[in-house]
């Protein structure tokens, strides 16, 4: 009796045990390797969207406030050198850079407060600060100031986009900024979620690959099929004509198939 029961059990249970799998807390069989992206600080140009850093200006230029001085124009070279950027503090160079950026975008001579002039000024300040942060990464106040300015610029760009799209495009192009809006559903990166997304992508790739190969296979079969179709249609037409029955296959239909076939031969590489 026991033997019989054991036999019955084995016949019923083993196949079910083999097929049934635990669908939780299991690692996937797919060999997907996940690499956690390196964290980029928010003040980094890669995040802020600045494509060009602050350029190295010609240090022999005069400081901004002495540009229009008549006395300096008549002075000797040594005095001129003393009033150049070379002997001035760093902020004088930044001042000049900001002026250049504002001048390239402002509306009129007196314009300082239009949105394009403001964004140009902030952009110059951001690039100058990004330069400094690289040198002094422990300056927390500077980092905070920089982050706040980047956020302010982004917010104003968002408004400008909504109000005046053409000007927004012109401005980001002339200032060399990349504008990427924040994703709607912001989630921190986790291993589980990332693997889920990668698995979905993997499945999608498999599906598209198979569809592509199937398409190729069908396209390879096309000439043979069209040839056969043409022959069959011609045969039917001929038979109908010979038997004096109503002709259901028009000559245009056959010509159409012929055209398709010639087109196919033209486009297929030899």
């Amino acid at each position: 009796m026991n033997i019989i029961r054991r036999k019955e059990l084995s016949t019923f249970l083993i196949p079910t045990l083999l097929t049934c799998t635990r669908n939780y807390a299991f690692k996937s069989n797919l060999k997907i390797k996940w690499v956690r992206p390196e964290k980029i600080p928010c003040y980094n140009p890669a995040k802020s969207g600045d494509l060009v850093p602050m350029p190295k200006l010609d240090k022999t230029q005069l400081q901004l406030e002495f540009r229009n001085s008549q006395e300096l124009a008549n002075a000797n070279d040594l005095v001129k050198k003393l009033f150049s950027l070379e002997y001035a503090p760093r902020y004088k160079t930044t001042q000049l850079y900001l002026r250049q950026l504002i001048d390239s975008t402002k509306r009129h001579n007196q314009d300082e407060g239009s949105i394009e002039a403001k964004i140009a000024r902030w952009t110059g300040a951001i690039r100058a600060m990004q330069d400094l942060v690289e040198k002094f990464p422990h300056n927390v106040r500077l980092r905070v100031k920089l982050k706040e300015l980047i956020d302010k610029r982004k917010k104003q760009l968002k408004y400008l986009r909504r109000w005046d799209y053409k000007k927004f495009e012109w401005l980001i192009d002339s200032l060399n900024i990349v504008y990427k809006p924040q994703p709607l559903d912001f989630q921190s990166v986790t291993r589980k979620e990332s693997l889920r997304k990668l698995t979905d992508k993997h499945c999608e790739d498999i599906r598209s690959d198979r569809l592509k190969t199937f398409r190729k296979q069908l396209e390879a079969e096309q000439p043979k099929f069209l040839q056969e179709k043409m022959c069959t249609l011609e045969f039917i037409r001929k038979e109908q004509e010979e038997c004096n029955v109503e002709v259901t296959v028009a000559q245009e239909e056959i010509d159409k198939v012929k055209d398709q076939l010639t087109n196919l031969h033209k486009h297929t590489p030899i």
Partner: protein
Amino acid sequence: MALSAASKSFLLLGECVPCLKHNASKFKIRRFELDTNLLMYFRKVDFVYALDPEKKCKTGDIVLIEKCPEQLTRLITHKINQIVYPLGDVVDPLTGKRVVGGKFREHTEAVNQVYGKMPTAFEYDSAPDRGWLEDVKDFSHVDTYVKYHESGEDQPHAV
């Protein structure tokens, strides 16, 4: 199953949202739905796909869409009637003048002329149509995502 309110009406006003489909655009339709228990209206958002083979609708545009007599595909049920307000290029319906924020473009231009317009300043007439910087410097027409994997490839839509 009861049909959603958006699918019942013939004409709808929707906002275009980013969509990856080649021949269709996706629209966000905001409606108020009555809660019969509380006798209060609550905001409800529906999404509808409309046929748009030329991709005339850009993200953010306010578009009038109408229902197709027959459902075209499983997703596409509507077609585009009219783009009412293109984003960032709004025309005042009363005067027919272009508007930026709360001001007419003409008025701002007149002020610029009085102060002496800069030759490098922005010109509306010579500016190209919207979309010339798409996927170059402007990525606001797509759904961006937080970068979750370092694949070694360039991921332009990742933040």
